[in-house]
C-alpha cells in the first residue's frame, strides 16, 4: 500500500477539522429550544374547531369579550357561536343572539317555533378570525395598520389605524368590526398575548368540551396538527383563496 504526499495531507487536514468540531454541534435540540432560538420562526398558529363537540353554552364568547376588553353589552364580538337547525323540508334556520354570549336556552329561533318532529339535524358552529395565509383585510389597508406577524397572526396597530373601515368590508368572513371605544378596526388576535406566553387562548381555556383547540401547524407532533393532517377537515369559503388557518371538523355544507 502506497500513500502519496497529497493524500496524506488531505487526510491530516480532514482529521484535524473533525477533531476540532465541538460535540455540541451534534446535539439534538428539543422543539421548545428551537423555538426559543428562532423567535417566531418555526411557529404557524392554527386553530381547530370540532363542531361535533359544541353544546352552545357560549362561555367562549363570554371569556373572549372579558379577556380582550371588548365592550360586553355592545353588539360586537371577536368570536361567536351560530346555531343551525335544518328542518326536514331542507330549510336552514340560523341564529346567534348576542353572538351566543349567553348560550342558547330558547328552542325558538328568531321568535320562530320549530316543531321537534320537523327537525332533521342541528349543530352549533363557533366562528372566529381565520388568520388567513392570504388575508384580504391586510391587502386593502391603506396605511399599513394591519399586518401578518411572522407566526401567521393578523393584528391591528391601534395607534396607526385611521378607522377607514376598508378591512371590515374586505373580510369575507365578517370577523372584523369597529371598536366602539378605541374607534379603530378590531379583530380576533388568537389571544396573541396568551399564545406567545405559553398559554392557550381564552376561548380554548373556557371550552369545557374540547370544541376549540389551538396549535402550531409547523410542529408535526402537535395534536392539532396531527388531526389536521390525518383527519377530514374543512375550511370556510375555500373558494375565496384566502387560505384560512382555522380548520373545522364536522362542517356542514349549510355553513357559510
Amino acid at each position, binding site marked *: 500500500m502506497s500513500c502519496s504526499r497529497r493524500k496524506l495531507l488531505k487526510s491530516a487536514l480532514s482529521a484535524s477539522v473533525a477533531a476540532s468540531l465541538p460535540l455540541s454541534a451534534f446535539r439534538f435540540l428539543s422543539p421548545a429550544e428551537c423555538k426559543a432560538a428562532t423567535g417566531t420562526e418555526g411557529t404557524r398558529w392554527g386553530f381547530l374547531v370540532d363542531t361535533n363537540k359544541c353544546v352552545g353554552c357560549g362561555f367562549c364568547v363570554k371569556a373572549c369579550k*372579558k379577556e380582550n376588553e371588548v365592550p360586553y353589552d355592545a353588539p360586537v364580538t371577536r368570536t361567536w357561536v351560530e346555531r343551525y337547525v335544518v328542518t326536514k323540508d331542507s330549510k336552514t334556520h340560523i341564529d346567534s343572539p348576542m353572538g351566543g354570549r349567553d348560550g342558547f336556552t330558547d328552542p325558538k329561533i328568531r321568535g320562530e317555533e320549530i316543531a321537534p318532529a320537523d327537525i332533521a339535524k342541528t349543530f352549533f358552529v363557533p366562528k372566529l378570525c381565520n388568520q388567513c395565509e392570504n388575508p384580504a383585510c391586510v391587502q386593502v389597508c391603506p396605511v399599513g395598520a394591519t399586518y401578518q406577524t411572522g407566526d401567521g397572526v393578523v393584528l391591528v396597530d391601534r*395607534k396607526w389605524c385611521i378607522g377607514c373601515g376598508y378591512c371590515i368590508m374586505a373580510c369575507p368572513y365578517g370577523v372584523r368590526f369597529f371598536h366602539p371605544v378605541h374607534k379603530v378596526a378590531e379583530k380576533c388576535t388568537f389571544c396573541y398575548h396568551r399564545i406567545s406566553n405559553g398559554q392557550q387562548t381564552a376561548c380554548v381555556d373556557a371550552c369545557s368540551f374540547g370544541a376549540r383547540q389551538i396549535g402550531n401547524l409547523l410542529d408535526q407532533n402537535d395534536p392539532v396538527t396531527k388531526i389536521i393532517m390525518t383527519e377530514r377537515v374543512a375550511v370556510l369559503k375555500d373558494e375565496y383563496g384566502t387560505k384560512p388557518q382555522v380548520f373545522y371538523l364536522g362542517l356542514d355544507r349549510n355553513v357559510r
Partner: protein
Amino acid sequence: MKNHVLRPLWCVLAAIALTLIVRHFMVPADFGVNGESFTYSYHRLSNVDEWRDFKAKYKGREYCQECHEENVAETSSSKHQLIQCENCHGPAIDHPDDPETLAIDTSRELCLRCHASLPYPDNPRSRIKAIDPNRHNTDTACIECHNPHNPNLEEG
C-alpha cells in the same frame, strides 16, 4: 427665467421638502416591511410587542388551587370537573388584590347555558341532563337545591 415661473416652482419644492421632513419625524424608525412580503408585513414592528404585553385576565384552575383548595378538590372530582372556575366566577385578573373577591353569579341563566332543554337529539347538547326552565322549580335559584361545585342527583 421669469420670476413668476420660478416662484411656484420654489413653492412646490418647499412643500416636498416639508413633507419629507415631517415624514421623517412622524414615521417611527421601525415602520416598514418587517417580514417577507410588502403586501402582508408592512407595519410598525413594535406593535407586535404591544399586543404581546396585553394583560391576560383569565388565570386558570391551577391558580385558584393556591387558595381555594377545597373548592378545586370538590369540583375536580365532580360531574362539573370539566368546567373552569372562571367560567362561572368571571376572570380573576389580580384577585384577591384587585378585585378582592369575585362576584358570585347565582342566576338560573348561568346553569341554563348547558342545562336548558333543546329538542336536538343528534346534538352533543343532548348528552347533558336537561330541564325545562319554565317548568323545573321556577322562581328558585338552582343552587338552592343543587351544589354547583358538585351536582349530585343521588344525594338530592
